[in-house]
Structures are given as structure tokens and as C-alpha cells.
């Protein structure tokens, strides 16, 4: 391989004093000093989350307070990093929701594994799991980083429901084509 030797140009007098460079830098500094700040004072200030943002996966309730998840385990199946773990269970008779028959008895999402891909939300046939605008998860232990069912519902809250599938099902059972 050929070696090319370059001749360094000697600095001019002005360049050797460094003064013009310092002044041009200070000009930028003073120009920005009077403009509004572009950074956020995180964590006191929080950014506005755009719609469609994929934050921490959460479980939601319908407007009647019913847990929407029926533990079909499709999210567990589709989850690429295997972060979701569900233990299915039956809805007990006499709970007023026995027509739904099935609900998770345990629902864990390991946030150390979650890659925020949103496939769980996409696959959910009951619209029960949503990646909402919560983005900051931290903890001191691995155990703390696993979101259990209670925490998932606490994070998820209640979302509007366009279908009320199970309420319609119950109404049909009470007044519909029964015989």
C-alpha cells in the first residue's frame, strides 16, 4: 500500500490567536441564550406522548369495571421475547361475570424481557392489553421489574369499549333467543 505524505498548511496569525474562533462560538451561545429552551426539565417536565406510542404493556378494564382479559394466552403465544406468562382460571359462579367463564388467575409481564413491539396488543381478540404512554420503568431487583396482574390493571386503568361483547352476550342470554 502506497503511503501518501501530506504537507500541513501553516496556521495564519489570526488562527494562531484563537480569538475569531472563540468569538464565533460565543456568538452562537448568546444567540441561543435569549431563545426559549428546547430541552425538557425531566423528570419534573414530561414530554407529550404522540398517539400510537408503544409504552409499557398494560391490562385495561371496560367502562363497567370488568377485566377484559379472558386469558386466551394469544399474547403469551405471540410474544417474541416470551415476556408474558399467564395462568388461566375460571370465573367463579355467582360473581356476576360467570358468563365470561374465563379470566387470568395470574398475569405476569417481565419488563426486563419486553421489547415493546406491541404484538400482544395487536393479537388480543378482547382488546384487553394496550401499550399505553407509560415509558419509564425502573427497579432495584429483577423481581420488581415483573409486572403482576394488579400492577398491570393499575397501570392500564379503564379504556372506552366500542363493542361491549360480553354485556351483549349476557343481555341475549336474559332476553334473547332463549328457549
Amino acid at each position, binding site marked *: 500500500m502506497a503511503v501518501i505524505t501530506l504537507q500541513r498548511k501553516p496556521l495564519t496569525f489570526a488562527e494562531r490567536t484563537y480569538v475569531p474562533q472563540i468569538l464565533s462560538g460565543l456568538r452562537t451561545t448568546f444567540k441561543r441564550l435569549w431563545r426559549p429552551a428546547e430541552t425538557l426539565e425531566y423528570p419534573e417536565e414530561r414530554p407529550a406522548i404522540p398517539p400510537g406510542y408503544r409504552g409499557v404493556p398494560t391490562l385495561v378494564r371496560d367502562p363497567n369495571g370488568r377485566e377484559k382479559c379472558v386469558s*386466551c*394466552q394469544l399474547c403469551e403465544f405471540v410474544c417474541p421475547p416470551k415476556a408474558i406468562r399467564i395462568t388461566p382460571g375460571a370465573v367463579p359462579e355467582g360473581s356476576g361475570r360467570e358468563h365470561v*367463564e374465563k379470566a387470568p388467575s395470574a398475569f405476569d409481564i417481565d419488563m426486563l424481557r419486553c421489547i415493546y413491539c406491541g404484538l400482544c396488543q395487536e393479537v388480543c381478540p378482547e382488546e384487553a392489553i394496550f401499550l399505553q404512554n407509560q415509558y419509564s420503568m425502573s427497579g432495584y431487583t429483577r423481581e420488581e421489574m415483573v409486572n403482576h396482574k394488579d400492577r398491570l390493571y393499575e397501570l392500564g386503568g379503564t379504556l372506552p369499549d366500542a363493542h361491549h361483547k360480553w354485556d351483549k352476550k349476557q343481555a341475549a342470554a336474559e332476553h334473547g333467543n*332463549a328457549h
Partner: protein
Amino acid sequence: MIAPAKPELVTVNIDGREVAVPKGTNVIEAARQAGVDVPHFCYHSKLSVVGNCRMCLVEMGLPTVDPATKAPVMDPATGKQKINWIPRPQIGCATNATPGLHIRTQTPQVKDCREGVMEFLLINHPLDCPICDQAGECKLQEQSTGYGRGYSRFIEQKNVKPKRTLLGPRVMLDDERCILCSRCIRFSNEIAKDDVLGFIDRGSYSTLACYPGKKLENNYSLNTVDICPVGALTSTDFRFKMRVWFLKQTNSLDTESSVGANTVVWSREGAIYRITPRQNDGVNDTWMADSGRELYKQVAAADRLAAAKVSGADSTLDAAITAAGDLFKSSAGAVAVVGSGRSSVEEQFLTRKLATVLQAPVSLVSRVGKGDGILVSADRNPNVRGALVTGLINALPAPKLTDLAVAIDAGKVRTVVAVGEDLAAAGLTAAQLAKIAIVYLGTHANTTSAAARIVLPSLTVFEKNGTLVNQQFRLQKFQQAVPAAIGTTDDLVILSRLVAAAGGPTLPVDLTALWKVLAAEVSALGPMSFASLPETGLLLDATPWAALPFIEGESLHYQPSSAKATEGRPA
């Protein structure tokens, strides 16, 4: 031996392909042999044909002949015999193959028919898939994906029917999901011989129901759950436990009796969730008993032995084996071995080796129950014939260990090696147990394990590999479904180390190497190997033991002694 008659073959044409099938084969089976899938719900190869789901509609035709001269009518366009297509589609399940029958399964008319049938079936079918246990193995899901219209035109209200009816202790019925295929009714009537199910009411009000005052509680009720093409019948034990697509399937055997029904064990991450039958037309067709499906519960039972013990204190396996070796030396010539009809063939072979090294007499314990004539036989040991084949015993075992009890009382036996058998249950008194030192290999705690000097925890059938010989002298293999429980050791390892501790040769513990020794030493197992044993088993030559008075009565594919000789023994 009379060779089975060769079936008469007839040639049929399916989607342009000629295929020769035995006479009497129906069109669905003929198409299956030609590699063509004819979708169906109500048809089941082991049940009678009713033809009420109409899903298997296909076009059929026969070659045309001149009515007067019976001469073939040729089609000038193709140069072949003209086919007289029946103008309307016919059901494949109720049509037997006849010579020259032509079948078309891919025409627009057939496609229309399937879409129409699917649409009618889905009209009243609830959108329960997310909560339905059948999802993932549901014929309705599969056929609607494969042959359905893809969208619904139904805007009216769906029928409402009872969702949670208990038909029996193990079967739950969801009437909304039922597509009225009548498989469960036919199974109860024809196979279980317990005709308790039937349809009541008419039209869209039709409902599956039990005969008033009766329950679906026979020992074969869970087969109705297996054959239900939808999620209408579900098992109360498996209900809402796990989605089937997570479960790993392992071929295993039902060890509750000497029938040796072939099974599939469904497990996930070391936990077994259910056991279902595996088709073996020579043993259990596609059925198994409910009692055999609960055997997996023994794996995680609370009384499972979890640590080797010497004189009641937990110890390591090494220390326990050494202690057993010392015990064998101190009581040389006064050792007896109690083998088991529940052990695998390989374990029985090693038990025999142990008995030979110790010069100990061997006894087995028989377990007799009531045979039901279907898939539970009177002999509740799955592998007594294995003990005969390996030479562990030469005569059939007795239910009580009377000879051993006499020998203990006389002081001739001071140490007993019990392989998985509870000596107290086999007739030894507490006083006799106290007189002897017991080396106990077993899975669960019992009186013997409590009284034993040395306890060696071993594996259940779901945690190991091996073979069993069933009542037909059919050698069948079972495979490991879940990892061994903590603290337990493979029976083969324990037995092999006991043989070594007793001063015998070092025997291999992996099945490939052990089977080489087995094949060399046991003439009946001749040139076989564990790997080459087919999944449906291999019939051994039973003539050396033909004179023994086996206790089993007739069952689904078994004829006792004299009748068996003329049966021709299907392979």
C-alpha cells in the same frame, strides 16, 4: 397360523388420480389414501356412519355404459370412457368405493357446498374461541379457515342455549357450541355401551342431553371430549388449564392395566396437563379409559419420595447404595427380591440380574381388578408378561407374598429388596416388616417406605423411557414426557448400581446399550433395539407362555388363550 385374507381391491379415481383401496372403504378414507383431504365433522373412522353434517359433499360419477349392450360409451373429446356425473353432490362418508367410481373434490359446486355448510354451522356458533378450550384443535376452526366463506352475512341474533351443563363428573357441555354431529352419542352407544346421550327438540332448538335421571359417568366418558369436533364437550379436569398449542406431546402408555392403551402425554415446562389416547388399531383404536387419564397426578403428588434415606435419615444416593451393598454382604444368602409387574422390561431385566447376583428368590405381586371388556383388563399390572419374557419369573404371580412371609418367619430371609411394591399391601404383617431390613425402590411413600432401612426414590412412567409387554405380548415403548422430580433417580441407574454394589457386573443404564445386552441374553427380544421398535409396538412370540392361566377376559382387541390362536394375530 392362518394368514389373514387379502382384501379385495377396487380402483377409484379421485381428482384424476387412480387409487386402489380395499372394497368397502368409504370415499373419505379412499381420498385420504390418495392424499386428498375431504373435510368432515360427524364421520369418525371407528364409529358408525350417520352422514348428518353434510360437510363431506363431493361430486361422484360412474363410467357410462350403453344400457342395452353394456358396452362402454366413449367420449370422443378425450378418447376415454364417458363419466356419468351425478348432478347433485353426494356425501363421501356414506358412499363406499365401487370399481370405477370417479370423485371430484375441487369443483366450484363442491366449494359452494362446503361454504354453505360452514355458513349454516357458524350461524348459531358463538364467538367463544378466546375462552374455548378446543381452540387450536377445533375442526370448526380448521374447516372454516380451509373451506369457509371468510365473512358472515348473519345479522340476526344467535341462538341462546345453556353454556355450562355438567353431563357427568368429568364432562361439561356447552350447548351453544354443539354442531349436532352425534359422535358422542354414537360413541356412548357403540363403544362404551352406555347409551345415555341423545338429541332432544327439533331444528335450531336441538340440544344434546342425557337420559333423564342418568349421567355420562362411565369410565370412557372423556373419549366423547376427544372426538367432539368442537368445544361443546370439555373435560372438567383440563378445562381452562392451558391452551393446547403450548403443550408438548409425548408418546406414552396407559399403565393402569395389562391392556397397554397407547397414549399421548401433553406437558408444558415439566408439568403434565392431560393424557389423551393415541391411535393404535391393534390395541385401543382411538380410545382410552378415564381412569388412565388421571395417572399423571402421581407425578406431583404430595407423598412423592424426594430424597434417598438410610435408616430414616436423608442421605445421598451414593451413601444409600453403599449402605445397601453392606447390607447385602452382611445378610448374604438371606436376601429376597420382590420385583414388580409395573416395572419396565429393562428394569425387570436388571431386577433379574440383581436377584442372580444376590442368589435371591424373586416374587412378584399380582393385582387383580375387574375387567370391563373394553380397555381395562383384570390384570392391573401393565407388565407381568414382560417379567415372563425377561425371565424374572416363570409362573404367574400371586396376590399375596405367602412364601416370603413363611421364609421371614423362619428367619431364612433377613433382607428384602422391594422394587416399587408395598410389602404391607402384599400381605406382610408389621411384625414381619420389623424383622427384616428392606431396600425400597419406589416413587411414593407407603408403609414399606416408612419401614425400609434404605429408601431409593425412583421415577414414574412419565419421567423415564422404557418398554412394556401388554396382554397380547405386544412390546410397546413409552417415552419421557417430563424431567425427573428433584431428588429422584432413574430406576435403571439405581438397579444397575445395586447390582454393582452386590458384587455383580457393571451394567449399562442407557437404553441403547442396555438393549444390546437384553437382545443378547433374552431370546424372545432377539434382534430388536429400543430405537427400532415401532410406535405401535411389536408382537412377540407368545407360544412359550401359552399354557399359563392368564386372568384377563376378552377386551377390545384381545381374545383369551384358545380363541387367540385362531385370531391370526394381526400385526
